[in-house]
């Protein structure tokens, strides 16, 4: 039950885009049509699911104050938490590379449809942000971290597909000259965010 609650909350209440603005750059740049938006969304879900539990283990057994106590009493006082940014981004960059190679080898069709967006995931704030929020929230076990990763990924995917669908329709409407393109997109995302606020406070 706790897992379902965390899952639903991370999709709707703590939505990566509407509540924390994570991964905004690629969100705005790649939401011009539904097909590529869908591909990028799925890639983000996959990367979050891989890197977040890994970074959870890294945080728990290497980075936290006293995390190294499994090496012996001498290491119990070591606090490596200042290294977390660089280790998290290293894990993310390395796994983007691995996923890219695996997808290229075994799923060439998906690889060609994702194209440039696959390597760009390494610098997507949603992935690093997921890890940093995981560290801040101090999850109890790896299951919670994985559920949080999956929920946030689904939330991000939902947001980008919805915006892409709206933008496809928006291109036919009459928008003031100064707002055309990126301006109206910002306002659309803002209004979508207000709509998502309706989910605030739900718990199962």
């Amino acid at each position: 039950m706790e897992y379902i609650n965390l899952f639903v909350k991370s999709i709707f209440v703590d939505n990566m885009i509407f509540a924390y603005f994570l991964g905004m750059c690629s969100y705005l740049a790649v939401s011009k049509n539904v097909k590529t938006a869908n591909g990028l969304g799925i890639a983000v879900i996959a990367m979050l699911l891989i890197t977040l539990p890994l970074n959870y283990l890294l945080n728990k057994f290497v980075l936290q104050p006293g995390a190294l106590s499994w090496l012996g009493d001498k290491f119990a006082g070591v606090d490596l938490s200042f290294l977390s940014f660089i280790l998290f981004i290293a894990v993310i960059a390395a796994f983007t590379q691995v996923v890219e190679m695996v997808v290229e080898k075994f799923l060439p069709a998906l690889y060609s449809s994702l194209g440039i967006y696959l390597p760009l995931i390494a610098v997507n704030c949603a992935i690093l942000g997921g890890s940093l929020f995981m560290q801040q929230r101090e999850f109890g076990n790896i299951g919670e971290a994985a559920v949080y990763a999956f929920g946030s990924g689904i939330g991000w995917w939902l947001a980008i597909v919805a915006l892409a669908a709206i933008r496809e329709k928006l291109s036919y409407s009459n928008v003031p000259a100064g707002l055309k393109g990126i301006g109206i997109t910002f306002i659309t995302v803002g209004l979508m965010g207000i709509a998502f606020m309706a989910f605030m406070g739900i718990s199962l």
Partner: protein
Amino acid sequence: MNAKLKETILNPILKGNPITVLVLGICSSLAVTVELKGALVMALSVIVVTGMSSLICSLLRKTIPNRVRIIIQLVVVAMMVILVDQVLKSFEATFPLDKQLSVYIGLIITNCIVMGRIEAFALGNKPIPSLLDGLANGVGYGLILIIVAFFRELFGSGTLFGIPVLSALGYTNNGLMILPPMALILIGCIIWVQRSIQKDLQEN
């Protein structure tokens, strides 16, 4: 000061503003604009990180092999971010900051402005222009951040830097301004104003 250098400094602040024109670095920026203090700290951090990492990457530009440049850039940027984060942490006792801000400081690593300026400018130019370009882009980013934070804090809580301004006049706080979506709508409006003045920026 020659004309080219002047252009390097002035362009990112107005005509090529990283947020409103290039739409880079939205990720880590919007969530810190609820109050002016957080926005100011974030703006200063980004100015330091963009300036210093552009300088370092420009100094290294002849020795970095092209194939591994992304990883090296990430390491340089992550190092600068860790330094900034440690400096902020050391002043925590006298200058307490919101806990969530430290997550967004960490997210400067994946801020597209930093990587974008290194890729587009620092790798092909001498150290001093690169430093100025990085600093100017940070200023252009910080300017938007502070404008958004000014309106959100003034109308959302009736204060500026925590000092009551409107609330002293009997103003009822507008809770909507505190909510995340308003940051997006405000940026949409800033883009609208800017593009109505500079008509050549308008999209078709």
